[in-house]
């Protein structure tokens, strides 16, 4: 499968909800889509295009928007494809891919923990790395890291 064929078939199916199919080095392409068609697009990729492996789910904070990307692998074509969508920074919410690929569970928990993207329909959307109740999403650009001062630690252990 070529990138042009993929673009043609996707556009034929989803119309202008597919914002573009860009070139990406080493991959089949980078499909930019509107976040409202997430579940249908995922299902199309898994069932029709045979992208059965979900390799990676991640998110990037671009300050004015947040990008969520999915990397899929097709056993038939031996190729990766990257799906990417932009979410508004004040309400970054997208449908969860867990019903399509169960392996999205841990990836989405990680994306929620670090970048603060909410996944609607996720069965167990808790923080995975930071402790429960942590106030920040550390991979946001507004979260600065710094040299620790000589801090006074008061630890209460029960």
């Amino acid at each position: 499968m070529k990138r042009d064929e993929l673009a043609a078939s996707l556009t034929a199916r989803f119309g202008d909800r597919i914002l573009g199919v860009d070139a990406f080095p080493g991959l089949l392409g980078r499909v930019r889509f509107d976040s409202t068609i997430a579940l249908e697009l995922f299902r199309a990729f898994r069932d029709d295009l045979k992208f059965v492996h979900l390799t990676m789910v991640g998110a990037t904070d671009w300050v004015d928007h947040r990008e969520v990307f999915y990397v899929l692998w097709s056993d038939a074509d031996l190729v990766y494809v990257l799906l990417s969508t932009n979410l508004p920074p004040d309400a970054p919410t997208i449908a969860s891919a867990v019903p399509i690929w169960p392996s999205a569970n841990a990836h989405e928990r990680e994306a929620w923990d670090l970048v603060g993207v909410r996944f609607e329909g996720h069965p167990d959307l808790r923080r995975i790395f930071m402790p429960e109740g942590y106030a920040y999403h550390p991979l946001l650009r507004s979260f600065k890291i710094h040299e620790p001062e000589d801090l006074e630690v008061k630890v209460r252990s029960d």
Partner: protein
Amino acid sequence: MSGQVPAAPKAGNPPAAPAQIADMPLEVIGQPGVPFVEIETLRAREFIPAAKEALSSLLKEQAEGKLIRPVFNWAGRNSLFPLHWGLACCAIEFAAAFGARWDAERFGVVPRSSPRQCDLLIVNGTVTWKVAHKLITLYEQMPEPKWAIAMGNCATGGGPFRTAYSVVPGVDKLIPVDVYIAGCPPRPENMLDGILRLEQLIKERGA
């Protein structure tokens, strides 16, 4: 009998608290003119702590003698059981030190899995805030006398992750540390050297 004993406390005065008696140094209590104990205010419940205190201070003096103490010191420093706990990269070198090439058991260092049976906590890796209170719990579960070694740069001062948001910059913020081992990660030789230095420290400082 009552003539021998100084007058019982007046109604207005608060009775002498036995805790204060126990707190007084022994030589003061035993001096003439100073009442040893006030019999009339003494009940068994208060006598036991006082007697315990007197006895233990006596034993402590004895233990500081020349005979027992060096033997126990020798025993303590030659048999350090570290806790079998791997935190991060240094844990791999920690394990390698028990491998065939370095064999830390030569020095009597045998890792145990239960903190109750350990007397050495080797913090071998990065300590995050999420695990900090568990580290303290483990340290508190170890019975006295106990020691701690900060192995590697992360445990000493945060190492390459010092600026990270989730990392404790130095485990000495959480527990008292006796020996720091530099290196990222330290080689097994360094770890053994740290343990031998701790033995030297115990020899000089006492348990």
